């Protein structure tokens, strides 16, 4: 009896813990499959669509609002938002796709499009767009459909986007009596204006006011400078960097960037090298007259008492150029409910959704922007005007951009920012060789 008792003393906790472990290990991800009816014939049941997004926090509000409106108009469909924040988003999506358990609608950034499409993770949208429940794609502003295309087909519809622009602080310009930069300005104008507004105000030998805050070694942003100088970073067939990343035009762009930091000394050095020079706070503090960047931090600047904000397009050099940063939605190729997913996608990324997006980002639909009067707004109009100056980004020419070329280009930028004696031509030549070697390694398939 006693022995039996003792045995039970062991037994219970051991079994309990083993059981817990098994439950924990085997518990499948929670799925609302119980109340799903077959597609097309929802007899009392609802289709549940899952939507994956990399947005988080405040950024989820427009998603939730669009979903609320959609569900009200489509009682047979329930939409479940699955946000994953930060840099884990793609890793999460990839594992879900491998496990055949990905959301029906997914949000993808521009440079991830080639990779996901090549892996057949998404449905082409052309048949939906032209089908019974058609979508008029001419509603979109110029340049916004192209990033969602690959191999001649449309895979994604635009969610949000931003070109580059130059913010300027009117307070500083007014104080020193310098004219605001205007559309159509050039690199020479940039150097002149930035030079005028770079000042040692207290005479202690260090600069207190900077002409322009630049985004440090941010490679994707740097594509604008290369394009404006008349260059490109890769051949259009995606096969080579030689003759492109080391071309005189690319070298000129690198040289100009270096000069802004090191020769003209009109740009403050980066405060950190981690994210696109985001550590610099000179513009926010009223210590830099201009800043070149995307539209993302604009709402904070509008509320900032140090800043009386103006926005102008990017300056031109040999070529009139700007680049676009873009996010879009597509339909998972493994979805059980393609028709329902399309219905939602059309709502999400179409005119109805744009009505909601306009309060958070630039709307993708031309009529929505028009009605909101954004074209005539001095700030938003400047952003929208940039859509006519876009050149394609380098990732559209090779799916290996991030892996092969980005690290090489980043090294060039870090070097010229830090080292006044660095030779731009030597650096671009070495970078082109390095990127080419990496590209060939990546292509050995």
């Amino acid at each position, binding site marked *: 009896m006693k022995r039996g008792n003792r*045995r039970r003393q*062991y*037994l219970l906790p*051991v*079994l309990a*813990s*083993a*059981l817990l*472990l*098994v439950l924990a*290990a*085997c518990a499948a991800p929670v799925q609302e499959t119980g109340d799903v009816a077959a597609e097309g014939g929802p007899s009392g049941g609802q289709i549940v669509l899952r939507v994956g997004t990399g947005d988080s926090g405040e950024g989820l509000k427009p998603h939730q609002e669009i979903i609320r409106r959609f569900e009200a108009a489509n009682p047979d469909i329930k939409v479940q938002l699955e946000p994953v924040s930060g*840099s*884990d988003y*793609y*890793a999460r999506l*990839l*594992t879900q*796709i*491998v496990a055949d358990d990905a959301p029906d609608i997914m949000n993808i950034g521009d440079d991830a499009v080639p*990779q*996901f499409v*090549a*892996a057949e*993770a998404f449905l082409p949208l052309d048949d939906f767009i032209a089908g019974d429940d058609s979508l008029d794609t001419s509603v979109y502003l110029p340049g916004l459909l192209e990033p969602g295309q690959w191999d001649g087909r449309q895979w994604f519809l635009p969610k949000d986007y931003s070109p580059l622009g130059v913010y300027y602080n009117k307070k500083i310009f007014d104080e020193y009596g310098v004219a605001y930069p205007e559309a159509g300005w050039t690199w020479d104008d940039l150097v002149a204006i930035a030079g005028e507004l770079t000042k040692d105000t207290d005479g202690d030998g260090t600069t207190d006011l900077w002409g322009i805050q630049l985004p440090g*070694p941010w490679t994707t942003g740097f594509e604008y400078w290369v394009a404006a100088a008349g260059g490109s970073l890769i051949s259009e067939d995606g096969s080579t960097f030689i003759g492109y990343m080391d071309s005189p035009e690319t070298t000129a762009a690198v040289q100009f960037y270096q000069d802004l930091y090191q020769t003209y000394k009109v740009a403050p*050095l*980066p*405060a*950190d*090298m*981690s*994210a696109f020079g985001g*550590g610099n*706070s000179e513009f926010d503090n009223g210590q830099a007259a201009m800043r070149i960047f995307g539209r993302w931090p604009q709402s904070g600047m509008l509320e900032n008492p140090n800043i009386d904000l103006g926005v102008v397009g990017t300056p031109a050099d040999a070529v009139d150029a700007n680049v676009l940063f873009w996010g879009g939605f597509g339909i998972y190729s493994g979805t059980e409910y393609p028709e329902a997913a399309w219905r939602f996608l059309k709502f999400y990324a179409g005119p109805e959704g744009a009505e909601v997006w306009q309060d958070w980002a630039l709307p993708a639909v031309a009529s929505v922007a028009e009605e909101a009067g954004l074209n005539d707004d001095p700030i938003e109009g400047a952003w929208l005007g940039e859509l006519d100056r876009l050149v394609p980004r380098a990732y559209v020419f090779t799916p290996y951009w*991030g*892996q092969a070329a980005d*690290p090489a280009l*980043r*090294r060039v930028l*870090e*070097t010229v920012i*830090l080292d006044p004696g660095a030779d731009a031509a030597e650096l671009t030549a070495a970078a082109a060789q390095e990127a080419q*070697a990496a590209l060939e*390694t990546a292509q050995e*398939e």
Partner: protein
Amino acid sequence: MFEFSASALPAVYLFVMAASHSIKRRETVAFYLCISPWIIGFLLFVLGPMLASLWMSFHRWDLLRDPRFIGLANYQRLFREDPLFWQSLRVTLTYTLLYVPTELIGGLVLALLMNQRVRGISIFRTIFYLPSVLAGVAFVVVWMWLLHPEAGLVNAFLGLFGIPGPRWLTDPHTALYALWLMSIWGLGRTAIIYLAGLKDIPLALYEAAAIDGAGQGRSFLSITLPMLTPTIFFNLVLSIISTFQTFTSAFVATNGGPLDSTLFYVLYIYRNAFQTFQMGYASALAWVLFVIILLLTLLVVRSARSWVYYGGGSE
């Protein structure tokens, strides 16, 4: 696989219990059952993934397309074609050489100070241990502000003495040292382990030494240090392993830059695995790291025989 092994456990238990007669065997079974949560966890979440990554290291796999067997090509690329592999190894080794002595000596000094009989000593202990409780990212961000080239407290302090502060995290010559400086905040963790070791040394030894006329320095060298060698050994092994796995500070503060000057090995693995999705190559890197750490640890353990003193005398 795990479904079988885990859910079969109760049945296995009953079967074995019925079959076993002697108390000894029953105790053996009970032993294994008691540690089974750990064993199952180890098999599922450590050994399983390790073997999977070994398998992956012989493949090319971007997660989306099927893995393709490429033999030793990943290992070949790593040793022969990848300068960043060597760079990350160099960075990691340099950091290990900087940090391990700092941690061993600094932690000991801190522990000796925290071992003083001073009023309110527990408050000091708490203060020094506190940074170890903070989440890694939070404390790195605090240090990024401290080390900010223009607005940071560290350079402001140096400025008081007319010393122009370096650009710390944005200068390839200083970035690694800046990370080293940050890591000193973590000394409290090592010091606590030392403190436990110090408390373990019998007071009688010090009393006997004092009677024999030994001063403070003498008793430190002849009693404290030798009695503390097992703790030093333990800290040394942990310290080496943890420096080889440094990730958070470099990921948050510098992202490996500038110019790869803080490209720690594990950060490089992370980039390959989760930024460019080269799972096979990342696995090969991880296995090379595993072998390096294993060899270094074996070396240290082997050396322990000649310098670590265990109270019971040698066997």
